[in-house]
């Protein structure tokens, strides 16, 4: 039981994205990557518009819990304007804040809300799914 975790994580940000996910929907003529978590049935499809090695636009669709939708919303926001070679570092930063509650990484902006989530192993998988789908795809 962890009330601090629950209220901070859910109430401030996650619930908002659960109701109104950002960058939700299909992008036409885009690269498309799919990922799923077979254990819980979560599913995500990621769309990227690329020019040369730069991500011009990103969106997602799929089915999953509030954490998955929030993580995918935030990630697709972060991706806009990034170069592909910058993604690995961003992902490493994301994994690192997951592991340390109280940690912060400026580049991750709102996604810092997931700091320390890896203490909740099953929920960390939900936050990671969009990122892993991205890394496996590119």
């Amino acid at each position, binding site marked *: 039981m962890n009330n601090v975790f629950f209220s901070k994580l859910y109430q401030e940000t996650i619930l908002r994205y659960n109701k109104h996910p950002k960058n939700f929907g299909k992008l036409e003529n885009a690269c498309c990557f799919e990922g799923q978590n077979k254990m819980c049935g979560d599913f995500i499809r990621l769309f990227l518009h690329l020019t040369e090695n730069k991500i011009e636009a990103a969106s997602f669709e799929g*089915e999953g819990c509030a954490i998955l939708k929030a993580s995918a919303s935030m990630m697709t926001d972060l991706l806009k304007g990034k170069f592909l070679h910058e993604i690995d570092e961003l992902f490493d930063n994301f994994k690192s804040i997951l592991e340390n509650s109280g940690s912060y990484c400026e580049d991750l902006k709102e996604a810092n809300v997931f700091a320390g989530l890896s203490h909740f192993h*099953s929920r960390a998988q939900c936050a990671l799914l969009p990122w892993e789908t991205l890394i496996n795809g590119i």
Partner: protein
Amino acid sequence: MMHISNSLRNHFPLLKKCPETVVYFDNASTTLKPISVINKMNELYTEYPVNVHRGAYRFAEQATRAFEDSRLAVQRFINARSTKEIVFTRGTTDSINLIASSYGRTFLKPGDEILLTQLEHHANIVPWRMLCDRIGSVIKVIPMKRDGELDLSNIKSLITNKTRLVGLVYVSNSLGTINPVAEIIEIAHARGAKVLVDAAQAIAHFPIDVQNLDVDFLCFSGHKMFGPFGIGVLYGKEHLLEGMPPHQGGGGMIQNVNFDEVSYAPLPSKFEAGTPPIASAVGLGEATNFINEIGFKFIQERENLLLSYTLERIKKINGLILYGESKERSAVFAFNLTGVHPHDVTAYLDQKGICIRSGHHCNQPIMTFYQIPAMNRASMSFYNTLEEIDYFIETLKETRKFFS
């Protein structure tokens, strides 16, 4: 109204330690362990912490006696004819795998049929799929109905003269359906098929008499009946176990060994290679004593009350979909809240001290049937209370509001 006394809940250290803040509704996954079981294992580890069998000193005698007394307790608990019919395994999964690899590889031929049901846990599907891929036998399936009961309308045509084995779950771990096991065993036997019953979800909830059921193989786990993790039982009719080759080789399961030839130990040692989980086995024996002391009469009355009390209230929650409404059922409730992902439901309940589970519950064929990826499951035991159910129902209503 039957009242559950605190002294009964005080048998369980977790409930005693946090009486107000823990509502444990994940009993289908594992039941809590009473202090008597924990103490019994502690006794073994502190007073005679040595290996069983063949030790000619008093501690080894004590450990062996405790270990074999436990086998005797299990034999009596399910009314088996002899302790030769009680094989200690790691759990239900291990027991089923033993049958699939020993009985299956010996007696099943290409084209032979294994009949399962759509309600099976993955533990009673995967070992058979692996066997079929290896030897070319075929799996057929008894379908389920919307209410979570088996559709037995075509049972007589599903059990053919090629059916060698029927694998059947006694109580569904996600829907709570209690299957008409005796009836299916009779039909199977009339066609010459053997029957394996997965009793993992039954063993702690009502008495099972293997002779009365005339079941060929019965599998269950210690940790779902107030016993320790890592111990389970395979019951098999003596003549069937006699005819089966060992599935594993090693110490303890032999009579004579040389490099050219090995002869095997008599039952049940033949199927217990290596040092057994002695403390867990002794704990399991103590768990049967615990159940006997509480009594199945009390357990059943109590759980039926919890069942009807919950059903009446859970169905009234707006936006709640209940899966499985079998007439014969146990106090297991599978559900979804419209618009709230099961992960979010369990996370919200956890934060209120309520322990339930979400996911596919190792029942993907059931998820496929209802066309859902996952569901929530609350499962109860006799030590749960009506107050806990009231709190659970109110919290579910709150959950829906929170996420809407």
